[in-house]
């Protein structure tokens, strides 16, 4: 199993690498286009600000590569958001893999949403063995709206898409690598896709 975590300078990727190590998989960190293409599975992480992360993707040519990948790709947190059409954060375009826009939570709730919330309406192999309303760890100020590609839903201010899937592309707003045993099960499921 060749697992590559895309390393484009955005966010804390060490904890994702460690989570896979706990599952017995040595993930490679890389921004090399050939290495990413040759991987069996790809993780697209991201923490930080959307428009600057998008800029880094464009500079390294990864914005062109990622949508053409054929193997299973899992975007986590900002990674998932960047796979959408656009984000209100820094008013940036996204990679356009998921046909949905990313919006900001209003001041009606505390922003960022920080902590454990439940995911439901689970509709994907990614959630095999995960019970409805399982708790996941989330930290985010922006969210993908409910849409046809949603494979999990969470409530915070409104009902939004906390996971997305289109063909071989998967995205989770929550951090499976920080979501205890249930999160590790989701990572295992991704490896088994």
């Amino acid at each position, binding site marked *: 199993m060749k697992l590559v975590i895309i390393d484009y300078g955005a*966010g*804390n990727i*060490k*904890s994702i690498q*460690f*989570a896979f*190590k*706990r599952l017995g998989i040595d993930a490679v960190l890389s921004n090399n286009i050939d290495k990413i293409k040759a991987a069996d599975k790809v993780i697209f992480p991201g*923490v*930080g*600000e959307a428009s600057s992360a998008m800029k880094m993707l464009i500079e390294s040519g990864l914005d062109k590569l990622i949508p053409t990948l054929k193997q299973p790709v899992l975007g986590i947190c900002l990674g998932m958001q960047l796979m959408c059409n656009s984000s209100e954060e820094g008013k940036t375009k996204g990679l356009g893999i998921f046909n949905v826009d990313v919006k900001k939570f209003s*001041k009606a709730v*505390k*922003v*960022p*949403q*920080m*902590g*454990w*919330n*439940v995911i439901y309406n689970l509709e994907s192999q990614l959630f095999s063995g995960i019970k409805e309303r399982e*708790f996941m*760890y989330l*930290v*985010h*100020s922006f969210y993908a709206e409910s849409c046809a590609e949603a494979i999990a839903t969470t*409530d*915070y201010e409104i009902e939004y898409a906390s996971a997305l899937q289109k063909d071989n592309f998967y995205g989770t707003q929550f*951090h499976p*690598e*920080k*979501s*205890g*045993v249930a*999160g*590790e099960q989701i990572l295992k499921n991704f490896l088994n896709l």
Partner: protein
Amino acid sequence: MLTKRIVPCLDIKNGRTVKGVNFVNLIDAGDPVVLAKQYADLGADELVFLDIAATLENRGTTLDMVLKVAEQVNIPFTVGGGISSVEHVDKLLKCGADKVSINSSAVKRPELVNELAEKFGSQCVVVAIDAKQIDGEWFVHLAGGTIPTDIKLFDWAQEVEQRGAGEILFTSMNHDGTKAGFANEALAKLSTDLNIPIIASGGAGTIQHFVDTFKEGKSDAALAASVFHFGEIPILELKKELKKKNISVRI
């Protein structure tokens, strides 16, 4: 629904866990990595590591500890103590810390909050505030609560939110170590004034204190050390009781 968080705090000195009672008289309570893993298994929602004797010399020891914790623990954790530069935060995050907590360094140079939020995102910037109520007014204290300032708690909290803090960890010096309950009045004001999560710290002694800080104090998370370290309040039992009182928790 977003749940209320239970956060054990591990005070660290030279790579070992200690708990300060009113910030003095330290008692050793174990190995941080072992404790962290145990807490993750017992149902803690996240962890805070506070390096209470942070110096330039022992920075490597702390980074080493952060790396070991990140390797073994599957819940989020925050690292604080002696952090005053973007470079230092970069190192901590690269070792696997999810968030960093800054305190005195933010008071000395408030721009640090902006710099960290811009470079790493607000979600990983916790501003810790130690404050003491003197004649009815709350004042910020520095250096583990030992140095008083004339900065008012609520002004400072609003300023750091505007500068990009993602969360506030508020410790009441009046309550810390007393086991007589959290500073719920001040916490409720912080929670109402601000639009970022507030972690209550200082004063946990009984399960009822946690109920009170979530209900009256409107806290988003509650932090404690000795009641957890010495098994006085088992986390699972605490969460069951909170749930019975209709407080949303991860259980």
